[in-house]
């Protein structure tokens, strides 16, 4: 029992981290059909910025947290304007390589500025646990889940109830019609990148305390986020978050209860699950198959 709940909460926490990065990927893909391979490195880079703002990892600071979100937001907008927009009409390969180039640059830049040495990153939550009915539940795990849930909620409220959020949704559905209604779709794309960058920053800051801050910290997380996003259908924000949480819980459960599955096999297992799901439901669990009649 104890082990079950522990695994569950760790799974929820991991899943929240994957889910927030997956949501970032989906936001960008929904609007622009671009897969941002650099999403993980953007998250890593902004986490380093947070670390620097927190006096080089001395102690958690909520002030630094929000400042980092703001910096990530602006950074995401800048990247879209400067790097991505000029390649709007380029081939898919060019666009993929551009985000990969960004990945390489950010990875190198982080190592260059802050050195590749492992760094300690503080958590806003204590490492102690609550004891409920004899079961220990990690405060950090629940806290992580809570933070991500709060961010996702804020974003959902934005998209559902604000004019700008509605315009972004409309622009993703039918950009030409939106433009005819006066919507500057180009800037809304940049806004999407800004939100995605901020979500990535949250993901990075939540995972760093556990895996320690290094330039390669987000690479595995990115894969899990991809898997979650694809599971959810790449166009479904709900699917991305649900996929992330589901994947996190499942991987942890498998790791605890199925003995051949060790930590090295986590990634292959995730990939295997992904392949199986896509074979059965090609558009993901929450996606809509666009029927192409030939």
């Amino acid at each position, binding site marked *: 029992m104890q082990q079950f709940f522990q695994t569950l909460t760790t799974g929820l926490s991991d899943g929240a981290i994957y889910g927030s990065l997956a949501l970032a990927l989906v936001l960008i*893909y929904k609007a622009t*059909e671009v*897969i941002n*391979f650099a999403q993980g490195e953007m998250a890593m880079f902004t986490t380093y910025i947070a670390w620097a703002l927190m006096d080089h990892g001395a102690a958690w600071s909520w002030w630094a947290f929000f400042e980092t979100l703001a910096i990530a937001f602006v950074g995401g907008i800048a990247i879209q304007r400067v*790097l991505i927009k*000029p*390649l709007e009409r*380029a*081939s*898919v*390969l*060019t666009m*993929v*390589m*551009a985000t*990969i*180039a*960004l*990945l*390489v*640059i950010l*990875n*190198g*830049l*982080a*190592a*260059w*500025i802050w*050195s*590749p040495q492992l760094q300690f990153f503080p958590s806003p939550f204590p490492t102690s646990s609550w004891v409920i009915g004899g079961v220990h539940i990690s405060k950090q795990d629940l806290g992580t889940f809570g933070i991500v849930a709060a961010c996702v909620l804020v974003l959902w409220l934005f998209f559902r109830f604000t004019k700008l959020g509605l315009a972004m949704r409309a622009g993703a559905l039918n950009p030409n019609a939106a433009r005819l209604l006066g919507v500057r779709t180009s800037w809304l794309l940049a806004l999407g990148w800004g939100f995605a960058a901020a979500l990535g920053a949250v993901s990075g800051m939540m995972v760093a305390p556990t895996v320690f801050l290094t*330039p390669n910290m987000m*690479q*595995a997380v990115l*894969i899990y986020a*991809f*898997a979650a996003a*694809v599971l959810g259908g*790449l166009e479904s924000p709900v699917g991305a978050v649900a996929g992330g949480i589901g994947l996190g819980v499942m991987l942890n459960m498998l790791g605890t209860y199925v003995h051949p599955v*060790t930590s*090295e*096999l*986590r*990634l*292959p297992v*995730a*990939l295997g699950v*992904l*392949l199986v799901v*896509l*074979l059965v439901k*090609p558009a993901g669990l929450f996606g809509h198959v666009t029927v*192409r009649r*030939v």
Partner: protein
Amino acid sequence: MSRFAKPIGFALLFCAVVIAPFLVSNYHTYQLGFVGLYLVALVGLDILTGFTGQISLGHGAFMGIGAYTTTILVVDHGWRDLWTIPLAGVIAGAIGVAFGLPATRFSGPYLALATFAIPLSFIGLLKRYPHFTGGNVGKNLPQLHSELGWHVNPSIWFYVVCWVVALVMFPLAFLIVRGRFGRALRSVRDSEIAATANGISTAGVKTAAFGISAFYCGVAGSLYAIGITYVNPDTFPIDLSILLLVGIVLGGAGSLYGMIFGALFVEFIRISWGPSILNLFSKAHHIDTHAPGSGLVVYGVVLLLVLYVAPAGAAGLIRQLMTLVTRLRRKKDASLSDPSLV
């Protein structure tokens, strides 16, 4: 381009390959051997990405499969390294087909994602079964030495082996992309819907392309293991797959001759010329080149610049140059015959 362009080009390449070892040091010959094997890998990947339009971020893993096949056969089962090369290719190719079959259900971004995870999974699998793969420690192959009764410097031997293989597989690629199959590949790249409407099995074509490209990369990986004489899980990280794609882009996706340039880039610019360029650049701008990560930044920036300025790679630039030359020549001819057109 005249009908003789390709045979002439091949002849030139052949001459260059034969002459090169006499002109450069043994160490550079050793490096040129790697250029040969990278050419094989890039040509294979180009068939998949440039000709069939499927972006794979995982072909470094197929090189790894080929490398490990050769290593395990040579070290654990006493095979002669040369005989393992085709087998390594076949095994990698078979796994490529096995991956390709379900993967063809995915298009564009989904495929890229799935392939992105292959190398990472491969590394995980390598570490998980150490008794078979040598785990983290890896395996050592015997020192590079010449064989078949020929006694020559090992670097030259390696060079010869690599380029014999390359000079066989390079024209083979031309045969593959010529004719009906090549047209099928290109039609899948340009419009899957139109291809299907013309009765082409896109899934079959894509799977075949996957298998072929994996075969090529497997062969390249086998040669790589023979040359490096050591493999471990970190020899084939995601960076390698990215590097292969970069080589394709720089050479010019969809151009086989362009891959020569790509192979030169992968071997030289990244390893030796890259840091030299970085040094020149940094002296002008006072950057500390020994800082970790600085090389990556320059590499990424150069890649971005190429994507903006010359997205069709070296092959594209040469094509533009030739068009310019033809146009100028035509203007000159026209103006000679009709003075009023000047």
